[in-house]
């Protein structure tokens, strides 16, 4: 019990709080709002448009001759969006189940933020490990918390007491449960190769032996690494597909397919409650991309760049590299969304249960076999 009174505990708490504030408020939430902006700009450019490229204050409303335009291009757009969400009327329909209706947006937002706690987003900075909670079952923790995210959507669909949200909620629950299996199974080969469930250890393994998807990043390529490349590639593809389904992104956005269900589970939500669903979706995207980066792209590692023990500058570089990789994956998320049409629901279920699940299962045995014969 003397641990409780020791200065170590206070140091631990202070460091965790500092890291949480840095990660959530300085990195992830701004990243979320600018992902929304990037989504609008990239989609526009893919469709040969420009997207939001000017933001200003409508001073003409106050009687001035001209609007005041900010010289930022469209970069002020997320701030304007946030202001709009905060100032809009928060309308709660009379027929909803109020406690659950209020609970659902929180449940959609919170799990995707909690997930970030176990993700190592940098090597070390001033001797401090850049992960909020370095738990040895990191991956299991992430899957456990991420599966809570489905409750937000199901509760939203059910509490809205309206047919389209209800259908969206039902679709979402079946979709997320189906793809969680594939997600978990396609991560198993990574655990087999790295020999650990701690995300820090998985990153360390990739720093020492080359990234899973690019095993040559450590400068050498052995025979077993070439063989393990195949299951790593399969695991990456199945994992990414499942990640798309888990975050309800196109081509798997059945829960909110607007051509069929108005807006799906958040049809009845307005103002900041709707924004919370929106933020939850994008935070889940960032958490998912971060997980893919940690599992397959070597986390914060980049060849020829030393880790944080070489100085605080390199610690910062490592963090930047990590979020750079995440941003690149986010671009892929957006790019895929504006390319592929939506699946039909039976196709979605068929892909999940008949292909992804089987491929991931076989891939585990393939990896185990290769490991057994080469090591």
């Amino acid at each position: 019990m003397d641990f409780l009174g020791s200065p170590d505990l206070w140091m631990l708490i202070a460091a965790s709080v500092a890291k949480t504030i840095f990660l959530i408020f300085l990195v992830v939430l701004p990243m979320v709002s600018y992902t929304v902006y990037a989504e609008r700009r990239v989609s526009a450019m893919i469709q040969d448009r420009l997207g939001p490229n000017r933001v200003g204050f409508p001073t003409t409303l106050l009687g001035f001759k001209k609007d005041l335009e900010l010289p930022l291009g469209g970069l002020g757009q997320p701030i304007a969006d946030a202001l709009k969400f905060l100032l809009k009327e928060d309308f709660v329909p009379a027929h909803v189940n109020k406690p659950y209706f209020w609970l659902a947006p929180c449940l959609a937002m919170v799990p995707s933020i909690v997930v970030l706690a176990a993700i190592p987003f940098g090597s070390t900075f001033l001797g401090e490990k850049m992960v909020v909670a370095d738990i040895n079952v990191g991956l299991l923790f992430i899957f456990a918390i991420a599966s809570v995210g489905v409750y937000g959507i199901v509760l939203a669909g059910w509490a809205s007491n309206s047919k389209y949200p209800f259908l969206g909620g039902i679709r979402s629950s079946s979709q997320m449960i189906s793809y969680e299996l594939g997600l978990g199974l396609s991560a198993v080969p990574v655990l087999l190769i790295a020999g650990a469930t701690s995300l820090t250890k998985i990153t360390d393994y990739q720093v020492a032996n080359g990234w899973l998807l690019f095993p040559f990043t450590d400068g050498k390529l052995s025979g077993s690494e070439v063989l393990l490349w195949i299951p790593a590639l399969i695991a990456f593809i199945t994992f990414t597909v499942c990640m798309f389904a888990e975050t309800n992104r196109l081509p798997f956005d059945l829960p909110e397919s607007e051509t069929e269900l108005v807006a799906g589970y958040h049809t009845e939500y307005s103002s900041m409650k709707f924004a919370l669903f929106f933020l939850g979706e994008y935070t889940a995207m960032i958490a998912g991309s971060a997980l893919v980066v940690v599992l397959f792209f070597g986390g914060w590692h980049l060849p020829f760049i030393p880790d944080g023990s070489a100085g605080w500058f390199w610690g910062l570089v490592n963090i930047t590299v990590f979020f750079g990789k995440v941003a690149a994956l986010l671009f892929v998320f957006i790019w895929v969304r504006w390319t592929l049409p939506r699946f039909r629901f039976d196709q979605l279920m068929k892909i999940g249960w008949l292909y992804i699940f089987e491929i991931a299962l076989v891939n585990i045995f393939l990896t185990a076999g290769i490991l057994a014969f080469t090591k």
Partner: protein
Amino acid sequence: MAYVVPRPNLTWKEKIYLPSIIAGLMTTLKHFRKMLTGETKVVMQYPEEKWDSHMPEHYRGAPTLVKDTHGRERCVACQLCEFICPPRAITIKPEEIPAESKWAKVEKRPQEFEIDMIRCIYCGMCEEVCPEQAIFLRKDYAITGTTREEMVHDKQKLYELGGVFDGLVHKWNPLK
């Protein structure tokens, strides 16, 4: 009538679906890249850039009144445009030209000439029916206002927009 929906036999390449996904991704990436490098130029930044110089000669914008080269208002207040106007946007109040005026022999002129631009449908019938070539559809298309009253163009505003028309009147022009 019932009919059999043709089910094409897919090759294995089509069945695994990934090649077509990649082909699609490449297509969208091409569009993204061309937009980024400025190769595609389809969007115009509206208030700064306008299409005005590309507008065809026959473009039908806001109707306006014109004066001739001597500064006489061409309109003789015959009210044909008022009668033909499909949405009844034109209101004319005619008056007699006083005898001491230089143009007394024209006899009539509009005392008030109002076009309600909220009602106007830019059909150009007033221009077509006018025997004196006094009303023309110009190329102004951004007619805006903050009140209904502001959107009613009176005589002064119409002459301001129209200006002077010189040249032969169509009905005396053998080429027209």
